[in-house]
């Protein structure tokens, strides 16, 4: 542990390899929590939080601006009271306390949701993704390959292990509120929980080259049975190992 921390302080930390396989197996025991729902929840919470802070500041400043505008006949200097030492300290300590409390509250919630995004359920389908200029190439556990189209069964967690054969790309599925970069020389991962059959856009988040804005694909969520049929048919068609899925 100490060595870990020591190493991390050195410049070596800059090239720390994200431990792609390092998710706790304990997560398996828990019921699957959908990170996308958690995202929406936390987003709204933070939105309310910042709106309240913003409205308070805006109201106070607007009030000051109206109340203390110079009217004809007013003195040409302000009359702000001189702060006593105690008041000066209080005006630091109290805001610091309030801001820190809010920060830590947000950080704690953010951390919990982060764990949700990083702990992949044990009951999952793992697909490998290799990105390249300009396509998303998926490989299923049984060897079936697809391009720019990720078909998945509804109700099962899907994990992507990602790398890139050229530049940086970022596999972003806005509907599932998740993205992570893929890059050469490293393996990164992400997961999401497709609940109902339907189609979702995949779009590239990282500037990867001239045609970056055309690097789009789809996640197609199928009913579990239909997915199985499709996968078997594809395996047969592509002549790969078959029903290891």
């Amino acid at each position, binding site marked *: 542990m100490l060595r870990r921390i020591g190493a991390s302080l050195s410049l070596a930390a800059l090239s720390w390899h994200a431990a792609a396989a390092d998710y706790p197996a304990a997560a398996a025991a828990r019921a699957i929590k959908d990170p996308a729902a958690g995202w929406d929840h936390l*987003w709204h919470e933070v939105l309310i939080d910042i709106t309240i802070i913003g409205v308070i500041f805006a109201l106070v400043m607007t009030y000051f601006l109206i109340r203390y505008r110079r009217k004809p006949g007013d003195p040409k200097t*302000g009359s702000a009271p001189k702060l006593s030492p105690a008041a*000066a300290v209080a005006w630091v300590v109290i805001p610091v306390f309030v801001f820190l409390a809010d920060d830590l509250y947000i950080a704690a919630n953010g951390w919990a949701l982060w764990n949700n995004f990083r702990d992949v359920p044990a009951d999952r389908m793992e697909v490998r993704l290799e990105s390249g200029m300009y396509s998303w190439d998926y490989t299923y556990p049984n060897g079936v390959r697809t391009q720019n189209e990720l078909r998945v069964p509804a109700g099962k967690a899907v994990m992507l292990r990602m790398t890139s054969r050229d530049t940086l790309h970022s596999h972003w599925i806005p509907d599932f509120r998740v993205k992570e970069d893929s890059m050469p020389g490293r393996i990164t991962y992400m997961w999401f929980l497709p609940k109902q059959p339907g189609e979702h856009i995949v779009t*590239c*988040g990282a500037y990867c080259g001239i045609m970056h804005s055309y690097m789009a694909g789809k996640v197609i969520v199928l009913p579990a049975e239909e997915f199985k049929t499709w996968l078997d048919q594809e395996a047969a068609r592509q002549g790969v190992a078959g029903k290891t899925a």
Partner: protein
Amino acid sequence: MNIKEWIFTTDHKRVGILYLIGSITAFAVAGVMALLMRAELSTIGPTITSNPSNYNVWLYAHGAVMILGFQIPALTGFFANYCIPLMIGAKDVAFPRVNALSVWLFYVGIILAVLTFFIPDPPDVMWTGYPPYSTISTGNTALYTFTVLILGFASIIGGVNFLTTVAYMRAPGLKWGKLNIFVWCTLGAFVLQLIFVPVLGTAVTLISFDKYLGTHFFDPAAGGDVLTYQNLFWFYSHPAVYVIFLPFIGVIYEIVTTFAKNPPFNYKMVVYGGIFGIVGLSGEVWVHHLYTSGMADWIRIGMMVTTLMISVPVGLMVIGLAGTLYKGSITFETPMLYALGVMFLFLIGGLTGIPLAVTSLTVHLSRSYYVVGHFHYVMAVAGTFAIFAGVYYWFPKMTGRMYNERWGKIGFWITFIGTNIVFWTMMDIGVKGMPRRYYDYSHMSQFEGAHQLMTIGAIILGIGFVIALINWIVGAIKGPKAGENPWGSKSLEWTTVSPPPHGNWPSPPVLEEGWSPYAYRRA
């Protein structure tokens, strides 16, 4: 007016004005790039160019020039040069010739940056220049590397110069605790430049080595690592945000105190809590730019906490500004309008940054237009409004003349409205899934209306800026005489004639007992 006299000047005020002219020119160039991008995005599919590379080059140039050619030079070049010696009662800076060298280097940098448009295959690597693309792109990035190195060097010698100036050349009796907030802010910014610029220099140099000399620092196939560059880049470029933020909030402090006729609320809190806090924290948060780049989990979590903690010193500085209004005698001339505009834009920008500090929220938000909207609010347009506020504010000092107040206000409101149309909409479509750096969005046609609205907004805000520029030019040539101290400020720069002569005062200003740049109550 003798051109040669200006080129070879060592007068800090003229050096400052040269910085201003250069950086406003850079702003105009980068602004045209922004309008070209907005024009391109106004319809789905190709609009004004069918080659995505053109868009990418505009975007690269817009980002790089706005930051390196406009905001940093305007804030740490123009304002620091013009104001610091005057504010501390000095005749000039400590090393006037070095100062002249730094502005020359700045012009060399700007010229190199503009030359990139005239070479074949201009760079399309974005101002961030991430490898591997930046090392395999056919775009020629060498000029960019030299631009960064030259501007960085100019900034480093400027930093040394100003730290020395403030340390040794204050008027007799001007204690550290009585410095203008702007001076403190600028010192903070220069400390950051001195520490962090070399890291950026390293990063871009290694990119050029990889690209042109065949080294493999960032090439995994040969044992290099792509993430190293991103870390080095943001290790500088996050603090660079505070290099922009600190001087601009300093300008706003000068303006708000003058137009509210109050001293800054809780000076010590602002300086020791706000400015020192920001300088101290700025180097510990860079990983929030790499939340979705596959960094180790522990550092993503750690930097979420440090990033959120930035809200503490920044919050103190905002409280200081709001508190300065309390029981003021507030008037609303153009500089004050822009300053209040900055407070509003910065409030929105700062608060919308909080979700971006939370790693788990950025898995959706990062790399989207939400980010682009946020950083324009918090830095790009807030900083630009502050620069405009400051130029309006010191305009009578620089030129000895007054701009037109009515057109000043009209220009402000037009820009302010346009700005909010553009950047609020950006945040909105970003949350809904619009990625940044897109030449086209044909698979996301639902955003076409919003993009059209933003294009209209960009034209509106552009008109407002042009009005301000014309106002300055006309005012400088034939505005009415302004006098020494049109705003009734207590700060030292207003105690000499406008424009101040070489050497600033016939004899060093004498500070009476109890003097402070903000001593309004005693008047």
